[in-house]
């Protein structure tokens, strides 16, 4: 019911987005009047991906393992590019090392000098706590030395999947 409704709402807005993104810059030159080709192309691309996105929330589908592999790969790239200036899996650098971080208590990597804020943060790193942390570390631990925020939710999901894969 809600799902169908969601799908109903998301689709048109996705189409609108497509038009909105693609059109202003490229349409005059490439798409010409934008009358016939867009519907065909967008119905092909959109319904499956949007539907999957919505119905898969929180559960693993049949295609789950394949998708998980792709997610971890993306997560590794995100990790290198977004976290790699400060973190490594096996070395304490600007920030603490990350291997095994999922399931570990915050502020407990040996040999790393944490801020008082992180020493006082009483929680275990899980998908959820990491997601909140990456959105805004200062909000979770005021006075933390990590100011960096990862704004893109899909990037956060990917990097968390990657950290999970190296925490097993």
């Amino acid at each position, binding site marked *: 019911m809600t799902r169908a409704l969601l799908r109903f709402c998301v689709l048109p807005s996705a189409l609108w987005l497509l038009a909105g993104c693609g059109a202003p810059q490229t349409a005059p030159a490439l798409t010409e009047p934008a009358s016939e080709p867009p519907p065909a192309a967008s119905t092909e691309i959109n319904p499956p991906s949007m539907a999957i996105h919505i119905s898969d929330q929180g559960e693993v589908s049949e295609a789950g393992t394949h998708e998980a592999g792709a997610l971890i790969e993306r997560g590794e790239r995100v990790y290198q590019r977004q976290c790699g200036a400060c973190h490594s899996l096996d070395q304490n650098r*600007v920030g603490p090392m990350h291997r095994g971080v999922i399931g570990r208590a915050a502020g407990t990597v040996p040999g790393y000098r944490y801020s008082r804020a992180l020493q006082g943060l009483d929680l275990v790193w899980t998908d959820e706590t990491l997601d909140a942390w990456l959105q805004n570390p*200062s*909000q*979770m631990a005021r*006075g933390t*030395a990590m100011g*960096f*925020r*990862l704004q893109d939710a899909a990037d956060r999901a990917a990097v968390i999947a990657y950290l999970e894969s190296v925490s097993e």
Partner: protein
Amino acid sequence: MTDRDLIMPSRRAMLGTAGRTLSLAGIAMVAGACTGVASKATADETDSDVQILNAAIALEHEGIAAYQIAATSGLLDPAVVDIGVTFQGHHKGHRDALVSAVQALGGVPAEAESLEHYATALDAASLTNQADVLKLALRLETGAANAYLGLIPALGTDYHQIAARMAGDEAYHAAILANALGEPIPVEPLIFG
């Protein structure tokens, strides 16, 4: 010399406004609301700013050391060493600007670790040729550009420009290094961040 000329104006601008900027008041208030701890005014905010800026200083220390290790590795062509030393100069300029900001806030700037510490942290022993060194430098510079861009929302608005300028420098370095490695030009826009 040139670096200095470029860095100084922004540093002066930073010092002039340091007292009333870099405030993370909004964040601190939200954090206070969440944890039930009353937001305790500027000392906490300043401490937070100092912590974040010190992490950036630590990042610059590591960058400076990385170029030092690279330049003395014997793995690089002399022309590449020259470029590396110039880039290292930029990182020293960044460090100096950040140190000034931390001092202006009444904080103690993060000290550099030993060269051996950085050599271990960066696994310098695994570098066997010039391409290895360039790849490491590219990885660090790309990460640094992204790190500064990701820091911007945590900093007060008066500091956004200096953080963005540093990200610009790192992105410039990354582009030169990627070109030296023969990497293709990214097709998609919004390459960093």
